């Protein structure tokens, strides 16, 4: 009992020290329409944080507010406990990696990376050269210094953009859909690279994406955003397994809504016989079965007409449309959603 009450109190004490970026009731209104509506959020030092939501949910605006490209209507942004209100983008210890990287097309990779350093008056030329070399080595772009952005691949462009921002050693790196410009195969590879890079440099990454898989796989913690507000904040597992709203549950993955309970397709079990373990089961008819490579996607229709999708392993029973099956799941796999909107 003692520990359980002391720990949160301790955590509260450390929070101030450990927080690198804090948003307090951040709001941005365009005319009357609120793009960002009272967001409060803190991000820890060295954390990989994903802000995920459908397009138009306000995540890009949030990032632009933090970056300093837009002024908030109300609310505050605190970097290391200090308000950054009214300061220009370059006066803030944050740096942005833009969606299409925004590399300067007329400059070489090395000149792009040096651009920010050259604006800092206290650095000498040899110092700049060393820092550029180090940054390019960090993102494995050594040897491409003299290339122009159009002479390197998409993945290399992304790494050049990362180097250009990281070389300034920001407290928080803001990434605006950094993987969306890449083709799907490269995207998965860059995901791993991005994560390992973040671990090496130890800088907090605030990453926005509309791709829930990306957010789930990359982030230490994530926030789901909808209509300018935060729906839920937590680790990927918390959000996926204990979504607080229908929106979060459905945004992060497939959900079957059966008699008020939510069940993820991969938790749904199908069997031809009544399950022997005494679990409560429902009878259903198979509508279709689609082979997806790593699993089968089976659409069933329950007796009450509700559709229920199951994702079952390849070695599961071969099911054909019209077959009648028993649908069941472990009660612990049910999503408990407080607010039913």
């Amino acid at each position, binding site marked *: 009992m003692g520990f359980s009450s002391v720990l949160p109190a301790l955590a509260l004490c450390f929070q101030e020290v450990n927080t690198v970026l804090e948003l307090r009731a951040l709001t941005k209104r365009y005319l009357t329409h609120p793009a960002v509506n009272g967001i409060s959020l803190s991000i820890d030092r060295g954390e990989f944080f994903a802000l995920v939501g459908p397009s138009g949910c306000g995540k890009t605006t949030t990032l632009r507010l933090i970056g*300093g490209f837009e002024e908030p209507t109300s609310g505050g942004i605190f970097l290391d406990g200090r308000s950054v209100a009214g300061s220009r983008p*370059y006066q803030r210890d944050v740096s942005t990696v833009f969606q299409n990287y*925004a*590399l300067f097309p007329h400059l070489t990779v090395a000149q792009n990376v040096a*651009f920010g350093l050259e*604006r800092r008056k206290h650095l000498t030329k040899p110092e700049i050269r060393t820092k550029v070399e180090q940054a390019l080595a960090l993102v494995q772009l050594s040897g491409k210094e003299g290339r122009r952005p159009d002479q390197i691949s998409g993945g290399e462009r992304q790494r050049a953009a990362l180097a250009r*921002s990281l070389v*300034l050693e920001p407290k928080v790196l803001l990434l605006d859909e950094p993987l969306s410009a890449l083709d799907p195969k490269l995207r998965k590879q860059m995901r791993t690279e991005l994560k390992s890079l973040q671990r090496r440099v130890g800088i907090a990454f605030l990453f926005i994406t509309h791709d829930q898989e990306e957010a789930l796989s990359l982030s230490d913690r994530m926030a789901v955003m909808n209509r300018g507000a935060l729906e839920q904040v937590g680790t990927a597992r918390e959000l996926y397994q204990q979504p607080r709203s229908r929106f979060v549950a459905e945004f992060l993955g497939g959900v079957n809504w059966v008699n008020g309970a939510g069940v993820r397709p991969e938790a749904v079990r199908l069997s031809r016989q009544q399950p022997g373990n005494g679990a409560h089961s429902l009878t259903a008819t198979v509508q279709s079965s689609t082979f997806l490579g790593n699993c089968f996607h089976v659409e069933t229709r329950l007796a009450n007409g509700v559709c229920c999708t199951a994702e079952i392993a390849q070695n599961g029973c071969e099911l054909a449309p019209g077959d009648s099956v028993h649908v069941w799941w472990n009660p612990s796999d049910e999503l408990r959603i407080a607010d039913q909107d």
Partner: protein
Amino acid sequence: MSYESPTRINSPVRIRLRAFFIAPGAAVMGLFFFVPLLIVFAYSMLTRGPYGGVMPPWTAESYSRIFDSLYGEILWRSVWIASVSTAICLLLGFPLALYIARSGRHKFLLLNLVMLPFWTSFLIRTYAWMFLLRDTGLINSALEAVHLVRQPLPLLFNSGAVILGLVYGYLPFMVLPLYASLEKLDPALLDAAEDLGASPWVALHRVVLPLSKAGIVAGCLLVFIPCLGAYLTPDLMGGGKTVMVGNLVQNQFTTARDWPFGAAAALLLMALVVLVLWALGRRGEDLV
């Protein structure tokens, strides 16, 4: 996807088709541009006739006369006035083009406004300027009416008036190519520059200007070349006192009746333009 140009495929049918479509244009250019150019060149190498026209013997005397101090001055003045006008057009046109390129859904309206003057004859617009600027014009009478000046200001019939007229006439030719290149500039590049610590001035100098070089070069050419050969504006706004090469050429064919010399001056003007194009072309290679 292949970027090989289709002209690489040289089947006989294609070659004939291509000749068929190119021939009319080439014939017009050849007949009405290249042949007359040869005639002009021939005229420039002949001797003047007593009442205009040309006659033998062949001589290069017209060319040597061009470099007389009097004509050299006219040449120098032409280059100087054209350069100053181009520079002013660039200074005025660049911010305007940048503003239009960044003005979202209003940009087509603004572009049309830039082109609006073309709806009226250039001659009429030049006369309008003269009515504004002359001693008894709107500006001078207004200044006198409020007792700001006693004598009318010499606003017309000088180099300044010529430059004003040229800038007024050719500003749209500067704005349009500048707009075209600035419009392609990704606004995220400006955000990135600011994010990396560039002041607006540095961003302009390090990002916007280098990336709009093609538009700047195109705009300067489109203004400089017609300004260099301008004839109407110096004639009307300069009142015959600010003579440029264009006026010299016209003069030789009309009042002076020295066709060989007029032809030589016209060719020299062309040589100047080619020289400018060549110089810019050489520098332009590393622009793209």
